[in-house]
């Protein structure tokens, strides 16, 4: 069973979609769905004011004509599928523990923040703090798989501790900041200061701006790990596998912290 939400027109304020995820909607009538509160600002906003609602709530949901004012789409998703046609706002898929979200558009900041499982696939670009940690939280993404087909903003993978992120395009400054684990791949170019304050974990960067001074050159060892990872990367497509199989220079850091993280950067 699929629930279909079609945005009538772009709202002049943000909408909080965190209550509109499959496990919270089971058994609701269309009327009850229309009354769901998606308010973030002073004016009370029921879902039905801004969306045409069709179908029945089940494990699957489709949002049409979405736009950047829709925050927390698929947040805390436990299972099922959400497909979005259009852009989304902040924190799409934040805290999700299972299921699949596909966004055929761009996502705002904190997409996949603190996700624990499931898959998040962003066909367009992603904003800052991709898979990161919201204020005060010590862990960003801890599990699951996240792919951005376009580019990502600053601090992609901030505080990530587990799971896999593949960015097919470029990443902004400080990709992989404060990383504690997991693997982040940037198939395009990463901005300056990648891996800053990284403790553990792995970055694969096709190209990068200047690295922080706490990353030391460990040469170009031929590691079986790359071959192993390349095998795991089949679902992410050719560019990710090619990056894992490229000749890679290993930098270890950030020595300003624990210094057990690593950046694999394509050797020219």
């Amino acid at each position, binding site marked *: 069973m699929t629930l279909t939400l079609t945005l009538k027109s772009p709202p002049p304020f943000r909408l909080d979609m965190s209550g509109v995820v499959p496990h919270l909607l089971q058994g609701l009538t269309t009327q009850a769905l229309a009354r769901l509160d998606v308010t973030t600002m002073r004016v009370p906003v029921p879902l039905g004011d801004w969306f045409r609602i069709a179908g029945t709530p089940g494990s699957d949901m489709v949002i049409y004509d979405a736009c950047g004012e829709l925050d927390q789409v698929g947040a805390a998703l436990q299972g099922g599928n959400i497909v979005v046609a259009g852009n989304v706002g902040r924190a799409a898929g934040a805290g999700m523990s299972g299921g699949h979200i596909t966004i055929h558009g761009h996502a705002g900041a904190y997409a996949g923040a603190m996700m624990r499982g499931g898959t998040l696939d962003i066909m367009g670009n992603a904003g800052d703090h991709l898979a990161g940690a919201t204020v005060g939280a010590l862990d960003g993404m801890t599990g699951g798989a996240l792919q951005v087909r376009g580019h990502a903003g600053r601090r992609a993978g901030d505080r990530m501790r587990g799971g896999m992120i593949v960015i097919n395009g470029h990443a902004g400054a400080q990709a992989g900041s404060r990383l504690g684990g997991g693997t982040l791949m940037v198939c395009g170019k990463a901005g300056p200061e990648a891996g800053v304050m990284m403790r553990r974990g792995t970055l694969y960067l096709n190209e990068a701006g200047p690295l922080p001074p706490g990353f030391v050159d460990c040469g170009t060892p*031929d590691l*079986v790990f790359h071959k192993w990872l390349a095998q795991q990367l089949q679902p992410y497509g050719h560019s990710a596998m090619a990056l894992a199989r490229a000749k890679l220079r290993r930098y270890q850091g950030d020595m300003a912290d624990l210094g057990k993280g690593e950046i694999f950067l394509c050797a020219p």
Partner: protein
Amino acid sequence: MPKLTTPLLRNGVRIDASFAEAFGMRATAVIITAPNLKWARQAAVTMTGFATSVIGCGCEAGIDAHLSADITPDGRPGVRVLIFAMSTDALQKALSDRVGQAVLTCPGTACYNGLAGSEGLELGDALRGFADGFQISKRHEGRHIWRLPVMDGEFLCEATCAMTRDAVGGGNLLVMGASPAATMRAAEAGVAAMQGVAGAIMPFPGGIVRSGSKVGSKYPGQSASTNEAYCPSLRGAVASALDDDVASVLEIVIDGLDYAAVAAAMRAGLKAMIALGPERGAVRIGAGNYGGKLGPHHFHLADLVP
């Protein structure tokens, strides 16, 4: 030994109306990869050396199969090794010791879990300390591997390894021929055929054992001793099990991940040896048992012959 009843005859080879009696064991499997098959095999051969019998070696181990590059976890050629032991603890110790001494040390290799299932043994988890704090843990899609820096790069080792409680050890065939050369030829043909069966290994040297044994001894502390009923040189002096035309006996012992694997291996071995015929190979094929009272698994030759 139970009294023999009328044997079956296949292609002139007498097949005893007997059965192999086998025991439940714990087993695990690892996949060893390397830049080429030579070095993967080298690690596996070293690791499975001196692993013929739990009695003296703590475990029984052998190479199960060669794996082509397209089916291994890292896209390199590899081999699958099976290890059997009587208890989880013994299996864990054998696994840690052998991977630690023979695979970790062997250039170019990586080591992965080779068995489906949830019950786990420590693999990399038991070895990571070797890296003295430089080890790196990676998890991906439910798999957890350790990367241990070593002098040729890294030793990649999966953290844990599955274990099965359904394993069967001690399946066997007794190959009896008119001359030592014919007996050896038959046994070699049997082992070659059995090596093609997945999930089963023949842990003795070259898959063959000559010192078939009985339980106990006249000497205290000697838990197993020579099976005089099958020793041709004692034929007249003891209650011999040998016919007049048998000049030499060899045994093939089989351990499998489950009952079916042992049965399949025995079936394949019987078929190959029967095909040789009594002139070039065995005149008679039997199986060892303890009267059916000790081992829960019985492999009747009558059920396995072609």
